[in-house]
């Protein structure tokens, strides 16, 4: 320190500013290399993400030269070679099947997570946790092949039943008897695929609910369900939201399982039991091989839309979870 310190001198107003020392770290060569390479890895990760966005955008430009961006966002048809293509129906159908999957998955995922963390006998708990984690790691193609060969012929009966008995509900209406490849079936397979993923996140968070709060609720004469409602669920809110958002992200981007099951349509229909379903990723997978360069550019543009949506879902999920109490513990 260079400046003389006049401690408690009443005449010195305002008091002389205290010199701050800036510690200049002189790193050794090894440390500099270490810092540099770690920073390079981090930067490369960052750059990779930007690159993906940049190249998707760049590749879509070819198509945006023949069709305007605003038309692309609303156009329901998909005839890119005639400059008549857009995500109007694609996006609708992607979101439709994803939300169907998430809605169907939610009660089961929550119940499975609660069962494993709160209800299962202690001896079973560890095995079930493992099983849940294992199921979450099963490749989606396994669900796809099962859905294609096993579920599709059987779920037909359920679809017919639903459409007959609940035909007064508009979304269940099917008039022409076409039940295969419906959004309902795609949604079911997606639901089965994402249930273990969401349940796994939720279970982890539930199991971290503070024991002292659990005991507090029980000591007040609460039943187990009372304890869950007043302690576990409020604590695990971040995990529930985070788990479902993660599941939604997976459902939105799921390619192969969906590609096996869809039969492409370009209409916007909310008749979920009726044949015809589509998603952006499935369309890319189906059309890519035979597509002309301009069509590939259009597919890239659709991919760009999917990219932005999944990015938003993931970022929003991490923002929501980090703001809840269990969020700091939640790693989605």
């Amino acid at each position: 320190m260079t400046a003389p310190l006049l401690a408690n001198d009443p005449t010195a107003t305002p008091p002389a500013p205290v010199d701050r020392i800036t510690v200049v770290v002189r790193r050794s060569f090894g440390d500099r290399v270490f810092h540099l390479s770690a920073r390079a890895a981090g930067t490369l990760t960052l750059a990779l993400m930007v690159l993906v966005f940049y190249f998707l955008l760049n590749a879509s430009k070819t198509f945006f030269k023949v069709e305007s961006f605003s038309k692309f966002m609303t156009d329901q048809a998909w005839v890119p070679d005639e400059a008549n293509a857009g995500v109007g129906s694609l996006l609708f159908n992607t979101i439709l099947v994803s939300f169907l999957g998430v809605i169907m998955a939610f009660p089961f995922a929550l119940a499975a997570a609660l069962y494993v963390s709160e209800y299962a006998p202690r001896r079973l708990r560890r095995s079930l946790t493992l099983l849940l984690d294992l199921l979450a790691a099963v490749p989606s193609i396994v669900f796809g092949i099962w859905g294609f060969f096993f579920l599709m012929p059987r779920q037909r009966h359920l679809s017919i039943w639903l459409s007959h008995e609940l035909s007064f509900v508009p979304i269940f209406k099917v008039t022409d008897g076409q039940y295969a490849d419906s959004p309902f079936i795609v949604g079911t397979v997606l639901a089965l695929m994402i249930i273990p993923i969401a349940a796994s996140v939720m279970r982890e968070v539930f199991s971290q609910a503070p024991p002292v709060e659990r005991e507090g609720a029980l000591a007040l004469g609460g039943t187990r369900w009372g304890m869950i409602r007043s302690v576990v669920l409020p604590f695990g809110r971040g995990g529930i939201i985070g788990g479902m958002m993660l599941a939604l992200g997976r459902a939105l981007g799921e390619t192969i399982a969906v590609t096996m099951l869809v039969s492409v349509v370009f209409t916007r229909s909310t008749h979920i039991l009726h044949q015809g379903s589509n998603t952006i990723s499935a369309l890319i997978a189906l059309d890519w091989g035979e597509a002309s360069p301009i069509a590939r550019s259009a597919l890239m543009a659709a991919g760009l839309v999917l990219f932005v949506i999944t990015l938003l879902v993931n970022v929003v999920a991490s923002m929501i979870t980090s703001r809840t109490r269990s969020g700091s513990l939640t790693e989605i």
Partner: protein
Amino acid sequence: MTAIDTTRPGSDAANKDGPSRLTAHGVHAWFGNHHVLADVNLDMTPLEVTALIGPSGCGKSTFLRLLNRMHELVPSATLAGHIELDEVDIYRGDLSATEVRRRIGMVFQKPNPFPAMSIAQNVLAGAKLGGIKLADRDATVERALTRAGLWNEVKNRLSMNGGALSGGQQQRLCIARALAIQPEVLLMDEPCSALDPTSTRRVEETIGEICSEVTVVIVTHNMQQAFRVSQQCAFFLATEGEPGHIVESGPTEKMFSEPDDQRTLDYVNGRFG
């Protein structure tokens, strides 16, 4: 359960004359094969404060948790003996664990208000958990907070989050929460061990005030505290490799001045433990 007035929002069994009597005969406790408590006999005098004292690991807290069936939450836990509330065995009788816990409240070592709830909601949590419809919620909140000595500090911010209070206030909120469902007995497990001296003093005052309406059983490591707040006292001890048991129990005055057992005298005078 139908709506009942705020003065007695406890369970039906609470509507009776006179204070309830909690007694323990020949109580043992195990965790797995580990025998932690042996042959405890204790009569908790109604409307008095009974302090359970003794060195760490002697089974006081286990005994306390036996009294409102929190012991059984530990998976391997077993017990033996009879604990009776008004001559009804709380383990063998018709009472369910939730009913027992509703009638015998508990305050923990670490303040544990529900952080997702406001102060008022915390106080009403017991009624909500028990499915009790309150005729006048505001009156219940005020009465419970007043009895816990917290009303004046929080009356203007009842909708504030319970977790935002100071440690001592949180602990008194927990006491208010326990009192709001009108328990007959209140168990306190080292309620001041996580608090500063001022907060400790406030909680002790609170204990002094509530014991006119509720029987209090308190576990404490602090001899002065036991002496200040309790009328009855039980000294627990566990020697190496043996389960904890009561060495001596009786009026606090006697226990601290002329106990029958030399070990009690040594302990209360801080010569071991």
